[in-house]
């Protein structure tokens, strides 16, 4: 579907909503072509190719809002769903902040969202990519005897948005990824690891050998792991785990959480809440990055927003609804009903992850976490973890079955070193960093 066709469908859907009785309306249409291949050993175990589309509508009338979503683009089906939504809207409370955004537009620079080479790759090449990754993990170490699969996937999406104030916009964006999950076996013990790479452009993906080497190393290095002692110690979070922590920081900085009292950052604008190393930015205008787009989920131009600057909280992240409610200006973070990240990242430091380890006399390196226990209201953080014990600046032995715990206000204040290994393989990313003092629970 061309961008013009997509805009036409979105605009017609807005008109239909107005005809049905909405006072204002917004419609977004997404059409995504997906390809995915999974290989295991020498077998192609999954091959998926599909096109999915859907329309998402927001309707307003007398300060009340309803949401309608449909994968059925047939006019009569859409009409029926809209009529239902408008009936529901009659039961919604009036809200003076509800409505379309007060500003709209597009970032005008070249965002480089489309890699034409992805569409030119034929299926055989993509299948070969996954099979090669599967061979490479098994060649990397004799203990790698099995896997949960090696993957190549790509997608091309057309996103169009129209609203009854006259906004019309559309863009096309591509993405590709490769990932693998080797299983290493030694005697009766099994160890798995996962590693992957994702980007808008094929050329920005880490190569098959790079992905295989990293995944294989992570699988075999955990043999012989034991519990660390229960202690308070510095903890280094490797970048993928660090990125997950950035997601928690994002949640606390999202105005939707702040407005309902579910954020430890509430009422702290202008305060120094982190160490001087804490500069965190949301930027939807970085060329070629996965979180970049010319406009957000409600047609507001994306931009660069510094959320934390040298430890000081400068702003929350807003869509237009919460901006009106909290007396601020939108930062272009609407997802069309919620608040989401563009490219949200911690500014990298100068040294490598190895430098961080070398500068730690006794502590823990966390390579992987499980669980999702973060209380955003208080900033309490706790995860199951695995990684390495650090003694005298060196990794001494693998550790697992332990937890790391702390709370974000203390953790950001104690974030005393940041590495230079930032990669943009998602929309919320981070370099590795160290927190000077956390609770490690083992035995």
């Amino acid at each position, binding site marked *: 579907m061309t961008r013009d066709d997509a805009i036409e469908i979105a605009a017609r859907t807005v008109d239909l909503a107005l005809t049905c009785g909405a006072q204002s309306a917004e419609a977004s249409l997404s059409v995504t072509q997906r390809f995915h291949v999974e290989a*295991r050993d020498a077998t*192609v*175990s*999954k*091959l*998926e*190719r*599909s*096109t*999915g*589309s*859907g329309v998402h509508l927001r309707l307003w009338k007398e300060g009340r*809002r*309803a*949401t*309608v*979503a449909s*994968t*059925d683009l047939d006019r009569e*089906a859409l009409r029926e*769903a809209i009529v*239902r*939504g408008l009936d*529901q809207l*009659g*039961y919604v*409370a009036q*809200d003076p902040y509800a409505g379309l955004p007060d500003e709209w537009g597009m970032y005008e620079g070249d965002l480089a969202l489309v890699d034409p080479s992805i569409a030119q790759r034929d*299926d055989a090449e993509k299948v070969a990519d996954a099979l090669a990754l599967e061979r490479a993990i098994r060649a990397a170490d004799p203990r790698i005897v099995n*896997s*949960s699969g090696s993957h190549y996937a790509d997608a091309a999406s057309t996103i169009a948005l129209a609203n009854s104030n006259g906004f019309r916009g559309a863009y096309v964006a591509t993405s590709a990824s490769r990932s693998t999950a080797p*299983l290493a076996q030694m005697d009766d013990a*099994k160890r*798995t690891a996962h590693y992957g790479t994702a980007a808008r452009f094929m050329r920005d993906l880490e190569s098959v050998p790079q992905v295989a080497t990293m995944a294989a190393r992570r699988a075999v290095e955990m043999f012989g792991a034991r519990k660390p002692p*229960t202690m308070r110690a510095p903890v280094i979070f490797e970048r993928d785990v660090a990125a997950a922590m950035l997601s928690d920081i994002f949640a606390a900085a999202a105005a939707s959480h702040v407005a*309902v*009292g*579910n954020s430890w950052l509430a009422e702290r604008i202008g305060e120094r809440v982190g160490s001087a190393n804490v500069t965190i930015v949301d930027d939807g205008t970085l060329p070629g990055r996965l979180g970049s787009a010319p406009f957000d989920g409600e047609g507001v131009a994306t931009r660069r927003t510094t959320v934390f600057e040298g430890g000081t909280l400068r702003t929350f992240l807003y869509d237009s609804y919460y901006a009106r409610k909290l007396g601020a200006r939108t930062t272009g973070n609407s997802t069309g009903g919620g608040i989401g990240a563009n490219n949200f990242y911690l500014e990298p430091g100068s040294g490598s992850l190895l430098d961080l380890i070398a500068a730690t006399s006794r502590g823990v390196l966390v390579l992987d976490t*499980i*669980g*999702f*226990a973060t*209380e955003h*209201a*208080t900033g*309490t953080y*706790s*995860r*199951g973890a*695995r990684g390495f014990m650090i003694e005298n600046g060196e990794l001494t032995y693998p550790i*697992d*079955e*332990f*937890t790391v*715990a702390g*709370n974000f206000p203390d953790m950001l204040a104690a974030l005393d070193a940041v590495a230079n290994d930032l990669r943009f393989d998602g929309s919320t990313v981070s370099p590795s960093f160290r927190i000077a003092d956390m*609770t490690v*629970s*083992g*035995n």
Partner: protein
Amino acid sequence: MLDHGDLTKLLQRALRYGGDHADVFCERRRVYAFRLQDGHIHDGTTSVVQGVGIRVVTGESAGYAYSDDLSFEALLRAAEAASLIARNAPAQTYGTIALQDERVAPLYDQARADHAPAIRYVDLLERADRTARAYDARIIAVNANLSDELQDVWIATSDGRFVHDHRPLVTLGVHVVASAGGDRGSGYAGDGGRTSLTYFDDHAPEMLANDAARIAATNLEAEPAPAGEMEIVVGAGGGGVLLHEAVGHGLESDFNRRGTSLYSGRVGERVASELVTIYDDGNLPEERGSVTVDDEGVPGAHKVLVERGVLRGYMQDTLNARLMGVASTGSGRRQSYRFLPQPRMCNTYMPAGESTPEEIIASTKRGLYAKSFAGGQVEISKGDFVFMVAEGYLIENGKVTAPIKNATIVGNGPDAMTKVVAVGNDARLARRHYTCGKGGQNVPVGVGMPTVKISSITVGGTGDDAG
């Protein structure tokens, strides 16, 4: 949705290069929901999701394509895309396909074709909100959601089966935040099932709201959890999340057929204390995880996973069952037509033992009473798991004492199951609000358990070392 003639043509096109099996999964899902926030109805949602997923299986390989364009031309293109998996397989032809309607006795109401009048949803949410706010002056926020889903699936398979299932699912969730003097506490309660709004006549939203508010107020006063190894008593009902994570996932047949689970090849071996018996049941009337037929058209079943500590069997979908030479256990489930089915849990629970919950608490010198969990996760090959405790208390000298908050417990599945030293006589299913995620797909599930004691587990908090 599609007639037998069209379905047969799609199956034939999907099998044009041959294959062991093909199926067509047609789905129409209508969701009607309201959300309450700040004391008011904040939003209403109507959604209609429909499409068709076509799968071709050859050996251990699956080709898949879906389409939400329901024109026959688009569906034929999807069948052709799915067929490609068999293009390089040894030449084989698939015989005649003759679809026969299959009827399976339904586990839930098949008659309800539409949602209720809007005012009834609004009323339930407002009752929950009023009750939670009235519970304690320190309650500062109440968020509540009520969703009513009607999912219809029509499944046609190349071995000639055609089956339809109509699955209602209502879920009411109440989240409460309490605040005082800079401290905060939150609580959640949810319930519902494969039923209709009349369920809440006997399971009043006031009960949920009171529980969510009580947990929030308790957590406001709670101390940080201790850190270190200690005894743990897991509460009846919601404690069943422990079985789901520590054992259940490891017994799904994809991991076991591929040999990536620590339970691979261990049927008949002792894997837990002999006090431990675990069932997974897709046949419990109106439970969230129940399926009249699963998403491959196979009737739901009662499965013995672990019996008195001995591993009895895995949960099977059709692909892994065929490769392992056994029958599907009706465990093939998927989030929607956009996904391949996977072997999944339905309702996982432990039957009653012989101890009273009072005896179990009284026998614990110093430990953690985990009354309910907020969720958990497991690593399949080694069995390490983690749980977040939603409502927890210290046990000191055989008595439940101070509430503690933000406890995460970590352990290892087989290790923890071997350390089960007491099983209560108070088995029950948890309230129905659990959703399980695997491989990027979410499906509704149920859990249940009696009060259970584990002799040693690591608690991760920030409080004093338990020593």
